[in-house]
C-alpha cells in the first residue's frame, strides 16, 4: 500500500506492487514485504581490519560461506559473492546502518550502497511455495538441496531474482523494481491452479 514517508513529511511512498491484494491460493500465499532497507556492501573479507570494522557495526561476523546468510536482530545479511554482501533492514533503518558502516570503515577499501529503491521483496509462503517457484526458477529448491538460511541469485524465467529460504516453507524473493510486476503476474498466474473455486 502507498503510505506516508517517515523521512519526508507530506510525501507518499509506494512500490510497483502497491495496491495489489495478496495472492491467496490453497497452500500458497504471496505478499509483498515493501520498503525494506537494502544495502550492498563490498570489501575484502580476508582483511582483518575490514572484518572487524563490519563486525563492530553488525554485531556478528560477515557470512563467508557461499550461499549462506545470518540474522542479527532485524538485520539480515546475505553472502552474494566472496567480496560482496546484501543487507536487509527494517524500513529506513538502512540510513543509520550506512552511516555507521561508512564511519567504521573509514580509510578501508569498501563500497556501501543504498539499493533499497532498486529492488522490492515478495514473500512466497506455504506448503506449495516450492511447487509455485519451480515454475520459473532454475535452482533446485527441494528441502534436501536448499536449506533455511540459504540464499542465492538466480533466474526466474526472464527476470533475475535473489531468493532465500527464510523458514521451512517461507521464501523471500528480491526482484528489481522494474521487474516486480512481471514476477507478481507470473506468480499470480502460476498459483491459479490452486486458487479457491
Amino acid at each position, binding site marked *: 500500500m502507498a503510505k506516508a514517508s517517515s523521512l519526508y513529511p507530506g510525501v507518499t511512498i509506494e512500490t510497483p506492487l502497491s495496491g495489489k491484494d495478496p495472492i491467496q491460493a490453497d497452500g500458497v500465499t504471496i505478499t509483498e514485504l515493501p520498503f525494506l532497507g537494502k544495502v550492498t556492501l563490498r570489501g575484502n573479507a580476508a582483511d582483518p581490519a575490514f572484518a572487524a570494522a563490519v563486525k563492530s557495526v553488525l554485531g556478528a561476523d560477515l557470512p563467508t560461506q*557461499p*550461499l549462506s546468510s545470518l540474522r542479527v536482530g532485524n538485520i539480515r545479511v546475505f553472502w*552474494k*559473492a*566472496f567480496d*560482496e554482501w546484501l543487507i536487509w533492514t527494517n524500513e529506513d533503518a538502512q540510513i543509520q546502518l550506512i552511516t555507521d558502516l561508512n564511519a567504521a570503515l573509514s580509510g578501508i577499501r569498501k563500497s556501501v550502497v543504498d539499493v533499497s529503491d532498486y529492488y522490492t521483496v515478495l514473500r512466497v509462503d506455504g506448503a506449495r511455495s516450492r511447487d509455485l517457484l519451480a515454475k520459473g526458477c*532454475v*535452482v533446485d529448491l527441494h528441502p534436501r538441496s536448499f536449506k533455511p538460511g540459504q540464499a*542465492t*541469485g*538466480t*533466474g526466474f524465467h526472464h527476470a*533475475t531474482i535473489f531468493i532465500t529460504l527464510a523458514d521451512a516453507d517461507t521464501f523471500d524473493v528480491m526482484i528489481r523494481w522494474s521487474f516486480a510486476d512481471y514476477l507478481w503476474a507470473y506468480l499470480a498466474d502460476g498459483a491459479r491452479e490452486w486458487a479457491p473455486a
Partner: protein
Amino acid sequence: MFLVKCPWCGWRDQTEFSYGGEAHIARPLEPGQISDQEWGDYIYTRTNTKGIHAERWVHTQACGRWFNALRHTVTDVMWDSYKMGEDAPTPPKDWDGLTCCDDHKKLAEGAKK
C-alpha cells in the same frame, strides 16, 4: 543446455551464466609495437578445439564473478571450473567427456567400497 560449475556457488543451470570465450589469451602488453598479423591473431585466432576446451564464464545471475572452466566441446559436459589465476585442473587422459569431476570422484569412491 548443460550444467556449469561456479567455483563458489556450485553446479547450476547454464541459463544463469554468460560465456566469455576462450580462456588464457593474454592481451599484448605493447599493442603499438606488434604487427597487424599478431594483433589479428590476438583478436580473432582461436584454437577451435574438438575436445577439452578452457573457457571463461561469468555467473551473471548469482555471484556475478568470472572464472575459467574446462568443457568438452563434443558432449558439452563441463569437467570442472577453477578461479582466475589458478592452474587448470587436468581431467584423466581417458576422460570420455560424459562425466564431470564430481561424478568421477563419486564413481571412484564407489569402486573403492
